[in-house]
């Protein structure tokens, strides 16, 4: 076990094979250290599973199981049922990518929620099947280049829109569903901690930039995630039992182009008439989302400027790391 950091468990620790600057590794580290090692983590196939458990090594310092791509929510349902039958209260957490949530995993997820299992399902959304080489998923936004939605003579990238999964999940009227992203750690922390106080099925959708697939500088993962929110393209919302109960107000609306330009997956939209149409479409989508959730007008405690502001000596972090560890292991 790795105990280098006295302030953090590092449930997901070093030596994993994620690409340099991986937003999913960053997000998973935040979430799992907020929850701590006294939980059971069920992982779908995907980037997170592959890069953390490569060839007989493991970066996980908590009980962790991977089965197949589509069934993480069902496996977690079984784990949760077993714990319930045994009278144990260990939290159960699913981790899946957008593939394992929006597409191949949607059926099992819907069943898990419908049956009311006490499981937190976390989707790390990097907006494509990244692990297998950047193929599109239903989470891939409109007009994005992927290897299976390439721009070409007849195409401007992905034709369809990004599946509105938070609405689908919220339509199950589960106790808690929320979107978050890595740029706003205090907001993500508040949502994870809130979710952990609630019993029943809970869902977190965390936008996780991918320098490789989104084609941006590895140093810009947090910046890009911030711009996704500030443009209105990725609203930060909370829905409880199907009702909208919280949004992150935008201190100001940034034009989508500020978000698109640093990413090569949108490059084909700049410099052609057809591309310009798609740029306007993306702006219209952002405007529509802002209107729909009232992102500029909501009466909220935090906004995108105030939430991320730093403090001397930090804001406090994670589930406290143990002072003495069992060295017999």
């Amino acid at each position: 076990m790795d105990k280098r950091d006295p302030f953090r468990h590092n449930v997901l620790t070093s030596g994993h094979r994620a690409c340099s600057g991986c937003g999913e590794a960053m997000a998973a580290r935040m979430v799992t250290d907020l929850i701590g090692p006294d939980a059971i983590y069920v992982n779908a196939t995907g980037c997170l599973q592959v890069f953390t458990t490569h060839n007989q090594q493991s970066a996980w310092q908590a009980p962790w199981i991977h089965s197949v791509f589509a069934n993480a929510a069902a496996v977690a349902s079984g784990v949760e049922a077993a714990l319930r039958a045994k009278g144990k209260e260990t939290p159960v957490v699913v981790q899946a990518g957008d593939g394992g949530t929006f597409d191949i995993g949607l059926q099992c997820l819907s069943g898990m929620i419908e049956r009311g299992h006490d499981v937190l399902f976390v989707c790390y959304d990097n907006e494509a099947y990244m692990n297998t080489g950047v193929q599109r998923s239903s989470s891939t936004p409109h007009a994005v280049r992927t290897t299976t939605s390439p721009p070409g003579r007849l195409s401007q990238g992905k034709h369809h829109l990004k599946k509105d999964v938070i609405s689908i999940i919220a339509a199950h009227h589960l106790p808690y569903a929320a979107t978050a992203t890595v740029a706003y750690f205090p907001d993500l922390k508040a949502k994870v901690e809130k979710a952990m106080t609630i019993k029943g099925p809970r869902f977190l959708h965390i936008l996780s930039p991918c320098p490789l697939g989104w084609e941006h500088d590895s140093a810009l993962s947090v910046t890009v995630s911030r711009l996704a929110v500030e443009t209105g393209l990725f609203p930060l919302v909370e829905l409880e039992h199907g009702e909208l109960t919280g949004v992150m107000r935008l201190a100001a609306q940034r034009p989508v182009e500020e978000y698109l330009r640093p990413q090569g997956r949108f490059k084909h939209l700049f410099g052609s008439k057809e591309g310009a149409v798609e740029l306007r479409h993306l702006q219209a989508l952002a405007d529509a989302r802002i209107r729909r959730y009232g992102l500029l007008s909501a009466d909220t405690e935090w906004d995108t400027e105030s939430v991320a502001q730093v403090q001397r000596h930090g804001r406090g972090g994670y589930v406290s790391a143990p002072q003495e560890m069992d060295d017999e292991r």
Partner: protein
Amino acid sequence: MKKLLEGSQAVAEAVRLCRPQVVAAYPITPQTHIIERLAQHVADGELAAEFINAESEFGAASIVLGAVAAGARAFTATASQGLLLMTEVLYNIAGMRLPVVMVCANRAVGAPINIFSDHQDSMALRDAGWIQIYVESNQEAADSLIQAYRIAEVCELPVMVCMDGFFLTHTFEPVDLPSQAMVDGYLPAFRFARTLDPTQPMTLGGGSEADNYQEFRVAQHHTMENAQTVIEAFDADFGEQFGRTYGGLVQDYRLAGADTVLLGLGSLMGAVRDVVDRLRDQGQAVGALRLRCFRPFPAQALIEQLRAAQRIIVLEKAFSAGAGGIVAIELRAALQQAGITTTVDSVIGGLGGRDLTPEVIEAIIRGAKPDEHEATCRFAPDHIAPDNINSGEASHG
């Protein structure tokens, strides 16, 4: 004490006696009565388990995978389409060496969709790494289920108990159910070395590459082979404690002096034994051998029982399209390996629930040996020659 029980009910009672903590299933004919019974038991407080209505068989298999990995004994049942749908997970369970036990209510596989019994479903999973036991009667179904948990948990291999859809699941037979105390004496509480537990964290289901993957399969194969001993021993042990045994891997009938032996699986063996008796009365040296354990393939046990036969007929309810009868092909290989040159007459029948009556069985036994220029297998029985079922011809029906 014997009661007249529907096969599904016998299974449900046996499951209850094994004290699973999680039951998960998705309904599919002809398994439904099993899970309905179990749901009622849970609702009435007679079975202290979580009963989970999965959203599909793929989900059901995944739920029991998770439950066992979290240290709970679990149960599921399915058939046909449902079994195929959970294929990915069944391989996963076996690869993780999780002691899951399930019942397959054997049913034909579509297309064309057909709800009646044959063995195509479980046979399609023969490579997945699951122990497969084919039962002949409702009594054996109940008893084998109890044995299955013990086998699974000792070997760390998943076990599939295969029982014929409708012929067993929906048929009433006298069944002697053991007491809870007897079952507790035979089957200890579930303990598993690789349980998901924060006090002993470990990673299950991680990646493997060319330098170590093969070793997983080698270990799996050896454990499967060695499981033959365990299966035999636990059946014998069951006999001592409960007074009933089933021959372990194979169950012979009137093989002494038999020059013709018919090998088969499942519920049809009752009818086969009637035919053997009739033919023996007519002076024919005929015997029967029931293949109980198909995986691991009990080559040694089969060879011992078939060594003396001059003619071996394999009658099976599944086949491999383009290759022939599955059990027949595996038996041929085993015989050849042992230097036995007796030919195997491969007969495939009873597909899609087609009845294998004693008359049909007798005709099969009497039937001519296969000619050299005939196919490697033959189908029985035939019906009226079908029309318009070849591809390329339009169907107006």
